[in-house]
């Protein structure tokens, strides 16, 4: 696979895409994560995402092979048994009948490594309850030994359960060579196991193709390393949905707001017509948010001055009655003092003092002369001293009179200006709630009194008039305060609604802008993703096609390019299947065996990806429901894969081993048999003829069995060895000659007696059984005929001769027949 990460590929494309800044920014943020995208969406979209995507360190995978699988008290296996494997590339078959316990090894390997098993997770409670071997009373244990390329020793992964533990409550550990026990997770295989899945079970073969299309899509996406792309797309898509909703919210909320406004009363409750103006602002094609916000903020901005007026009225103050009474008293006292001066008006005194002062000046120049005013007696010294005293007295009296008059004037001024001039506010409109008429009348009466009334009248009426005015103003003030409050109470919820809507509208406006960016980002990312995806998929698709070509053999189904298509819930793997040249055929026309082959074609590229640390593949029973010709294809395919991978295949019959032998493809074959009480035995069985002969030899020496019984079973194995040799010869010859597999198998199945089978091998004609003995004698000598006869009858009637000699004669005959 290419080494560049998806992120790098996208950033590269992005740099030459010349997207508008906000769109570019969103694409980058979507690759970075949820938080980054959220940040990019809440900002104005202009500033570049803060953090740059980092590239994860890529560890070179260490090639890992399986070395052993040990099972004890688990599934079909009772006492401990170990499947030993050669840790390197090569093909190993484990053949055993269904129920022999062979799948227990596959399951144990998968469970030990993954902690879960595909078969497990999907299975019923009954199955899960049966995980422990019935014939085990002790502990259960599964262990996998792994060998890493270029490292000495074996890494073990072990899971074990005390005898009474539940499946989930077992313990697991891993141990690298020379290291302590450690948690399995520390091996770091969780992700690769998920990505490359080196295990393929029979049940999975069925679901890989027939399962939900989205599952295979996801599996392939993951293997292609496209998770980031998927995440980024998902993030953008989620955001798009959210912003789409949010961009519509203001419009959705508008009818309610308009209804609330239309319910708001007309003048005079709303003399400045705020509700109507708000309506107008809202009904514009692009609502005037500034105007709406201004209206929502409140009374201060309204321009008719009424709230001001009301405010001013409520702050009016008039002098209290005590203050008025005091001022009146002051004026009265001053008046009384003036009245007390009675007859000594200050002017007369001052004039007289002035006359005497002038006379004194005259006296100073003309002492002793007669008074020039009355021409009477002369002005002498005694007159002068009396006159001086009189002048002083007269000046004092004049000053007292002045002071008294001044006091009256001051007191009068104080009283007359005690009440302020009538405020203009009272003359204006007070919203119809407060009536200022009485107050204004009284105010004018007072103004008139204060301006024109004599001090005497003022003193008599001031207290009464001012008290009346004060109570009238109190009334107006209270009315104004009430009007003010009513006015703000009625408007308040409307203002709040307006303010709320304006905020919503601004958010919606932002969302609308972002939505457009998001759509562009998503469109761009999808197109870029499609290219990257198909480029990445190409090598996999190619290998799948090759696998299918190898497996299809006589199938009329052709597999075209594999594509990843659709997205979200529509995502699927598109398999271009052509049946008999008809395109677009459904998978349902394919046989079970073809589907399994197809599944293998999809599984193998993934499990053999070069990035996978696992150099082994464990495939459980791929042969089931494959016809013989496909088994040949499978044998070839597995041998190819085994050239640089360790391939372990579990199989329930001898077809695959037979095909491998016939096609002379190298493989190690293990045979699994299970005794009663779950005693499982494993042994090599690369060559059935040798296997039978070895068994015959072993039994011939088994003194534990009575001699009669020994003779019977030895004869049985000898006959099987001959049958196997003949079958092999016949298959090889006929298939090489181009005969169809099914016809070969029919011919072999029809040859039931040993005579017929050997005749088929010798003459390619089962009906020439009567010529077998002569031919054997001619070609292989008399011992061969003896062995043939003993093998034929020995299982019915006890062979009386030397068993060991019989086996060796048979071995020579079998070797001869195989040539």
């Amino acid at each position, binding site marked *: 696979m290419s080494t560049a990460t998806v992120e790098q590929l996208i950033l590269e494309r992005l740099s030459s895409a010349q997207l508008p800044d906000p769109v570019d920014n969103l694409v980058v943020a979507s690759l970075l994560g949820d938080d980054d995208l959220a940040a990019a969406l809440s900002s104005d979209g202009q500033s570049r995402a803060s953090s740059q995507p980092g590239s994860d360190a890529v560890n070179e995978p260490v090639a890992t092979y399986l070395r052993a699988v040990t099972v004890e008290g688990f599934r079909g296996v009772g006492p401990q048994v170990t499947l030993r494997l050669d840790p390197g590339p090569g093909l190993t078959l484990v053949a055993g009948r269904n129920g022999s316990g062979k799948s227990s090894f596959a399951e144990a390997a998968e469970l030990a490594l993954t902690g879960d098993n595909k078969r497990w997770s999907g299975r019923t409670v009954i199955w899960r309850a049966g995980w422990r071997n019935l014939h085990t009373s002790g502990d259960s244990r599964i262990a996998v030994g792994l060998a890493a390329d270029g490292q000495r020793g074996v890494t073990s992964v072990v899971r074990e359960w005390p005898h009474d533990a539940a499946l989930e409550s077992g313990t697991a550990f891993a141990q690298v060579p020379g290291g302590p026990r450690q948690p399995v997770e520390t091996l770091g295989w969780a992700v690769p196991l998920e990505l490359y899945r080196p295990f393929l079970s029979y049940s999975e073969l069925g679901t890989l193709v027939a399962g939900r299309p989205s599952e295979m899509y996801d599996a392939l996406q993951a293997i292609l390393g496209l998770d980031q792309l998927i995440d980024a797309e998902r993030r953008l898509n989620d955001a798009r949905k959210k912003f789409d909703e949010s961009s519509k919210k203001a419009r959705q909320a508008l009818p309610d707001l308009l209804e609330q406004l239309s319910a708001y009363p007309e003048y005079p409750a709303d003399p400045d017509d705020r509700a109507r103006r708000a309506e107008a602002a809202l009904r514009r094609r692009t609502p005037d948010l500034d105007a709406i916000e201004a209206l929502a903020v409140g009374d201060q901005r309204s321009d008719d001055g009424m709230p001001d007026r009301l405010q001013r009225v409520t702050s009016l103050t008039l002098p209290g009655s005590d203050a008025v009474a005091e001022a009146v008293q002051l004026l009265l006292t001053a008046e009384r003092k003036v009245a007390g001066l009675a007859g000594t008006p200050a002017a007369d005194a001052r004039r007289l003092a002035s006359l005497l002062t002038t006379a004194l000046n005259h006296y100073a120049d003309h002492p002793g002369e007669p008074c020039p005013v009355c021409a009477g007696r002369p002005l002498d010294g005694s007159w002068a001293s009396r006159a001086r005293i009189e002048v002083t007295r007269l000046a004092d009296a004049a000053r007292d009179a002045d002071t008294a008059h001044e006091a009256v004037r001051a007191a009068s001024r104080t009283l007359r200006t005690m009440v302020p001039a009538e405020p203009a506010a009272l003359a204006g409109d007070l919203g119809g709630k407060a009536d200022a008429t009485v107050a204004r009348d009284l105010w004018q009466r007072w103004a008139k009194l204060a301006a024109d009334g004599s001090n005497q009248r003022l003193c008599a009426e001031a207290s009464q008039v001012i008290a009346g005015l004060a109570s009238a103003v109190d009334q107006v003030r209270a009315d104004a305060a009430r009007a003010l409050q009513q006015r703000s109470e009625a408007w308040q919820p409307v203002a709040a609604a307006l303010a709320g809507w304006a905020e919503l509208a601004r958010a919606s406006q932002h969302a609308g802008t972002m939505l457009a960016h998001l759509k562009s980002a998503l469109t761009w990312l999808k197109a870029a993703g499609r290219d990257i995806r198909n480029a990445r998929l190409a090598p996999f698709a190619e290998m799948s096609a090759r696998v299918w070509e190898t497996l299809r053999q006589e199938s009329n189904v052709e597999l075209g390019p594999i594509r990843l298509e659709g997205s979200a819930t529509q995502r699927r793997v598109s398999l271009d299947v052509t049946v008999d040249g008809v395109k677009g055929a459904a998978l349902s026309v394919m046989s079970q065996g073809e589907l399994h082959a197809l599944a293998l074609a999809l599984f193998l590229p993934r499990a053999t990806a070069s990035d996978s640390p696992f150099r082994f593949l464990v495939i459980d029973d791929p042969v089931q429901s494959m016809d013989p010709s496909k088994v040949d294809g499978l044998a070839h395919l597995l041998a190819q894969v085994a050239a640089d991978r360790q391939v372990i295949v579990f199989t329930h019959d001898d077809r695959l081993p037979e095909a491998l032998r016939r096609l002379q493809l190298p493989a190690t074959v293990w045979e699994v048999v299970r*005794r009663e009480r779950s005693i499982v035995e494993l042994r090599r069985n690369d060559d059935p003829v040798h296997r039978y002969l070895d*068994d015959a030899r072993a*039994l011939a020496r088994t003194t534990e069995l*009575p001699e009669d019984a020994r003779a*019977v079973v030895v004869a049985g194995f000898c006959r099987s*060895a001959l049958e196997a040799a003949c079958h092999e010869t016949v298959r090889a010859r006929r298939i090489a000659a181009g005969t169809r597999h099914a016809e070969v198998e029919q011919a072999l199945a029809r040859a039931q007696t040993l005579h017929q089978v050997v005749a088929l091998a010798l003459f390619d004609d089962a009906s020439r059984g009567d010529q077998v003995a002569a031919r054997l004698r001619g070609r292989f000598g008399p011992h061969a005929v003896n062995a043939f006869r003993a093998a034929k009858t020995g299982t*019915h009637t006890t062979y009386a001769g030397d068993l060991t000699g019989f086996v060796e004669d048979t071995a020579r005959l079998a070797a001869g027949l195989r040539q």
Partner: protein
Amino acid sequence: MTPADLLTQADRLLNTVIPGTQGCWPRACAWLIRLALEETLDQYWANVLPEAASCPMRAQLLLLPAYADIGTAQRAREAWTGLARAAHHHAYDLAPTAAELRTWHTLVSQLTIELT
């Protein structure tokens, strides 16, 4: 060996680990049970219809319902069908399982009683 002896040995192979029989006991067991069945039928025909003993097994099984209980005949056929297949090297078949062998063993054991 009598059928009973053969069945005893077959049972030993089936439920005990006899040295030298590892892995090969299933087929060995099958042959012993098969021989026990053949011997049982031979003895039966010797008393009932001596000519039948020399007939092929297929013919013997076809004759059996005419002489023995119908259920017995069915059991004999079932056991034979399985054992004949298991005892030959057969196209692609692996050795019989312990469960199959136990079934045949039980069937034949029953036949040894029913056919005497």
